[in-house]
């Protein structure tokens, strides 16, 4: 077996076609689950594997599945394919090139919680992928792998795609469910969590595409095998989306625990034109800025090790920043994104992102005074801990960390030439 668990299409040509996927033991795990395993056994396997959610939060997947109450029906499973974090393009490659492994994972998840219907919520910009998955689903129905009384059992399952329409907030799972219910995508107050009151107020599992793509291999080869990859607390591999100031941007599937140095220099080919690495964002725009030096470069990338920088791995969207990047400009780019994507439901985020954007724009254009940098910092700090969902909190991370860690970049632009426009 190659080192790929998720991007296996890179080693196996034609894996996006059903006959090829079937040759590679495709749907053996789903058949095994439905015909040989009780739902609780499937959940236990995923728990034992240590699989953690790949969408950003890193929550244990098996545990999430086990929260659904068995006295309230129907249950639903929703695949979160609303990949919208700036710097993230991994789920797209999985769905485009290894679609059946993702679909099989979704189908096993559905069996594990005894859902008869599962939805795939795909961002609107991935219109072509929704069409593509519709074709794949139709193929599975024709092959008898989806539909009524699967493998002669009483288990039946249907999959449907649902296309979003350009709203980052719908990657937040409760906003996603609102959107799927035909409403504007604003997050719900939690609790209750989707596990008890999700889609149509029924118990619901929401899992990221990459998370689900791990599941068939875990069921097929067993949880112990899965622990051969990655670290003790973060088993398995991760698809890192590498972008920004790097010679070879792209997706890299590597075991958890790989270092910044390996990812950026060995795989990504280092920063262009002999410039110097300045900082890295690990969770797309929703990141603190981690200043880079020789010692930081050896930090392992897993769910725990970035805590010491106040950061998190998130969806592992690694944006590389070199010494040509002014962090006041970067701050404006990130808050402008969050201002555009704020759903407007809670005041701290709606107003906070608006004012951060105005201030950061003035500063980046060289029209800001030094005291406005302090004001920007204060607005961000005021927002922290007060927003309804993570979007508001995320919008402050680059602001606070860039002013804390790269203050000279701000001092340079409040007194000198504009860096923007």
């Amino acid at each position: 077996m190659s080192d790929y668990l998720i991007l296996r299409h890179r080693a196996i040509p034609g894996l996006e076609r059903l006959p090829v996927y079937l040759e590679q033991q495709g749907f053996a795990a789903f058949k095994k689950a439905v015909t040989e395993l009780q739902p609780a056994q499937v959940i236990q396997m995923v728990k034992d594997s240590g699989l953690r959610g790949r969408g950003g939060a890193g929550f244990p997947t098996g545990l999430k599945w086990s929260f659904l109450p068995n006295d309230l029906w129907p249950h639903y499973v929703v695949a979160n394919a609303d990949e919208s974090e700036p710097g993230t393009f991994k789920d797209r490659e999985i769905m485009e090139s290894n679609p059946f492994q993702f679909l099989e994972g979704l189908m096993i998840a559905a069996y594990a919680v005894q859902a008869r219907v599962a939805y795939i919520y795909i961002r609107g910009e991935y219109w072509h992928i929704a069409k593509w998955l519709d074709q794949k689903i139709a193929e599975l129905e024709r092959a008898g792998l989806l539909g009524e009384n699967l493998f002669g059992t009483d288990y039946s399952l249907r999959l449907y795609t649902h296309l979003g329409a350009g709203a980052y907030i719908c990657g937040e799972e409760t906003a996603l469910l609102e959107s799927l219910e035909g409403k504007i995508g604003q997050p719900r107050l939690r609790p209750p969590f989707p596990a008890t009151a999700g889609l149509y107020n029924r118990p619901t599992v929401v899992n990221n595409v990459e998370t689900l793509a791990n599941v068939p291999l875990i069921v097929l080869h067993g949880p112990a095998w899965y622990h051969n990859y990655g670290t003790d607390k973060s088993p398995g591999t991760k698809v890192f989306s590498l972008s920004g100031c790097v010679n070879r941007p792209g997706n890299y599937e590597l075991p958890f625990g790989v270092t910044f140095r390996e990812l950026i220099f060995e795989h990504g080919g280092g920063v262009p034109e002999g410039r110097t690495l300045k900082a890295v964002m690990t969770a797309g725009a929703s990141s603190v800025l981690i200043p880079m030096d020789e010692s930081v470069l050896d930090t392992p990338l897993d769910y725990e090790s970035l805590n010491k920088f106040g950061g998190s791995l998130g969806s592992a969207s690694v944006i590389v920043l070199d010494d040509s990047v002014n962090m006041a400009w970067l701050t404006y780019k990130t808050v402008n994104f969050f201002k555009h994507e704020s759903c407007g439901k809670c005041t701290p985020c709606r107003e906070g992102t608006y004012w951060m954007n105005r201030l950061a724009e003035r500063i980046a254009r060289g029209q800001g005074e030094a005291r406005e940098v302090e004001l920007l910092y204060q607005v961000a700090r005021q927002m922290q801990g007060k927003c309804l969902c993570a979007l508001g909190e995320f919008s402050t991370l680059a602001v606070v960390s860039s002013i804390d860690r790269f203050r000279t970049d701000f001092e340079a632009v409040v007194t000198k030439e504009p860096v923007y426009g």
Partner: protein
Amino acid sequence: MNTLRAKYADEIQAILAKYPPEHKRSAVMPLLYLAQREAGYVTAQAMAEIAEILDISITDVASVVGFYSLYYDQPHGRYHIQVCTDLPCALRGAEDFLKALCQALGIEVGQVTPDGLFTVEEVKCIGACHRAPVFQVQGDGEIVFHENQTVETALAVIEALRQKARQEKEGTA
């Protein structure tokens, strides 16, 4: 008379079949895409017809149109040229690309080309950060990605669409 329902009965039925009958409101987004494909934007009449199909208020439909950025309630150019200038793309020259593209077309961001065919828009992340500069073309009910672009390749894409529109016009004339 509900013209959407009359014209697309089968397609609407297939959309509604995805969702529990008591939750047919879920079909509002796919129905809006259907209506937008028909007219190039979502007309007030289409909103009313969708509301009728789903037994919800026109306000409910209009709020969805207003919230999501891929729906339009006004006519624009037939094709939306959507250039991503978010952080990772900007680090690969997307802002300069957008500026140069607009200059070549002789319009500002958000404006429509004189032939009424193209609106150039600056958009947020579209999930192609490693292949910037990148834009997508939204129009004719489709969204098509164009990656690793230069101004020259982008203009070629635009010219091909222009040819297509011209041929259609001649075909119907």
